[in-house]
């Protein structure tokens, strides 16, 4: 277990440091946002794949994180409290929604609907704040135009020392690695193992004496905080936030990334996200064929041919050639 983690860390760092030597700055620019999205994908992969919470509207936390960062950064002229806000705001919302849903013992599908509906509500509300009067401190909400000129991330408490493109690349990459390793450790902790049990059978977990509501709420909040972090990174990267971050189509994209990569794994969401983002970006540039057509065909084919997602399919192939003992929940 330690060995695998060490391998992941070294591999990740090697990749992170090696890539700038072989690819152009423009690609690094794209990879940075892919990494931020991958963090977002991880949040959904955690909450859905390891806790069984169908968060169809996970984009709510991403968007909230992005907006919280933007508004706080503009008001405080320092990204440090802004990053804290980006973690705090989604977590607070998750506490509210989670309490309402889990302690009300809402069932799975209906939680999905509530989640979806919340993202729709926030999208509608934020979208309609175009009027000048919608301001929080110095930051106008901007409605469907969004908030432009979002300040970049700076070194903690030193607002003059901001991070440039390459710095953002390294920061986002390192954060992705930290989140990944952190989640792996979380999932082998008692808390994580119990959450996996809850995913498998809530009834059985309850009968073993675990307060299922609290475990789900805990995981849901952790997922929200991670999504918020991703949102903040996205806002800082592009210097812009808009209501599309709350949108259903964005939430659905995350679901696709996780399913395609492999539900119930951690590396799957990362791979699924980066691969599909890369394909979409490339298609957008090359313009030979509408990206929707290709994506649509990929999804349909993937579901029909690789129902578990690519990572489990690859794991299955690996196991076929190298049979060994099966492990427990996380991968």
């Amino acid at each position: 277990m330690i060995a695998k983690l060490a391998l992941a860390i070294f591999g990740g760092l090697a990749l992170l440091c090696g890539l700038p030597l072989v690819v152009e700055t423009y690609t690094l620019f794209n990879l940075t946002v892919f990494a931020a999205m991958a963090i977002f994908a991880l949040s959904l992969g955690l909450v859905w794949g390891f806790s069984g919470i169908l968060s169809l509207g996970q984009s709510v936390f991403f968007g909230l994180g992005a907006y919280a960062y933007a508004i706080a950064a503009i008001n405080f002229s320092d990204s440090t409290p802004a990053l804290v806000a980006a973690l705090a705001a989604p977590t607070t919302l998750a506490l509210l929604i989670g309490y309402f849903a889990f302690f009300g013992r809402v069932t799975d599908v209906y939680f999905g609907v509530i989640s979806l509906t919340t993202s729709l509500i926030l999208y509608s509300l934020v979208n309609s704040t175009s009027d000048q009067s919608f301001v929080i401190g110095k930051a106008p909400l901007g409605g469907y135009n969004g908030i432009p000129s979002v300040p970049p991330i700076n070194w903690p408490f030193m607002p003059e020392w901001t991070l440039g493109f390459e710095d953002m690349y390294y920061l986002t990459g390192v954060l992705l690695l930290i989140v990944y390793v952190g989640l792996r450790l979380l999932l082998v902790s008692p808390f994580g193992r119990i959450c996996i049990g809850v995913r498998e059978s809530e009834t059985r977990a309850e009968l073993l004496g675990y307060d299922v509501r609290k475990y789900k709420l805990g995981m849901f909040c952790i997922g929200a905080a991670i999504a918020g972090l991703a949102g903040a990174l996205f806002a800082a990267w592009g210097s812009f936030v808009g209501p599309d971050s709350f949108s259903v189509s964005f939430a659905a994209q995350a679901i696709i990334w996780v399913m395609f990569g492999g539900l119930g794994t951690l590396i799957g969401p990362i791979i699924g996200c980066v691969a599909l983002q890369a394909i979409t970006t490339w298609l957008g540039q090359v313009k030979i064929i509408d990206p929707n057509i290709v994506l649509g065909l990929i999804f349909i084919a993937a579901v029909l041919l690789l129902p578990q997602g690519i990572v489990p399919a690859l794991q299955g192939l690996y196991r076929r050639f190298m049979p060994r003992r099966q492990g427990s929940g996380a991968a």
Partner: protein
Amino acid sequence: MILETRQLWCRFGGVAAVAGVDFQLEEGEVRCLIGANGAGKSTFFKMLTGQLRPTSGAISVMGRDVTRLAPFEIARLGVGVKMQVPALFDGITVRESLALGALRTLERRRVGDAVQAMLKQIQLEAEADVQVGLLSHGQRQWVELGMVLMADPKLVLLDEPAAGMTRGEVEKTIALIGRLRGRHTVVVVEHDMHFVGRIAEKVTVFHRGMVLAEGSMDTILRDSRVREVYLGRKAGGVRG
């Protein structure tokens, strides 16, 4: 007294599935609840586990009133439950499932040994690292039993533990329950009369939501009310 119910009722619409049951269980007993389908045993059982709210009446476990408690709260008092419909962690291994049963009550470093010991008890050492979902039906029942016992519950509630098992598997289950005698108090809901005869010290017969008769297996079989309900008056009168 480890378990007691007073005037326990459970009504669904106009139907009373459990109609005023007074039930007492002493520590260390192995009690079987029997009765025809629809007699109210399972409904009664679900109220004991906290999965169903009684319409009226009271339940107390180890002296505490548990009538309105959630299943996890009742479990924490030291009650282990195995439902009729298997509730298992299908996607993880046997070893991990047993570990989850112990994580709440044991220190982390003691869990490993405890799991190993349980694997031996339920005779699944060879299958320790197999996914639970891949096991046979009988093996899954034992995994569930194992999980329940990991927390060393004082009161063990089993709903049809022998359901769907082969003769050999039933024998093993009888032996397992036999080993529980003394350290745990056991309540078993069962249909298989052979099974009941082998394990029960005392039997409670349910009928139409009420307790019809209670006593040792012999007493029950001789009870005229029981014979009337199960065999009909004429048929019951012939055999001894």
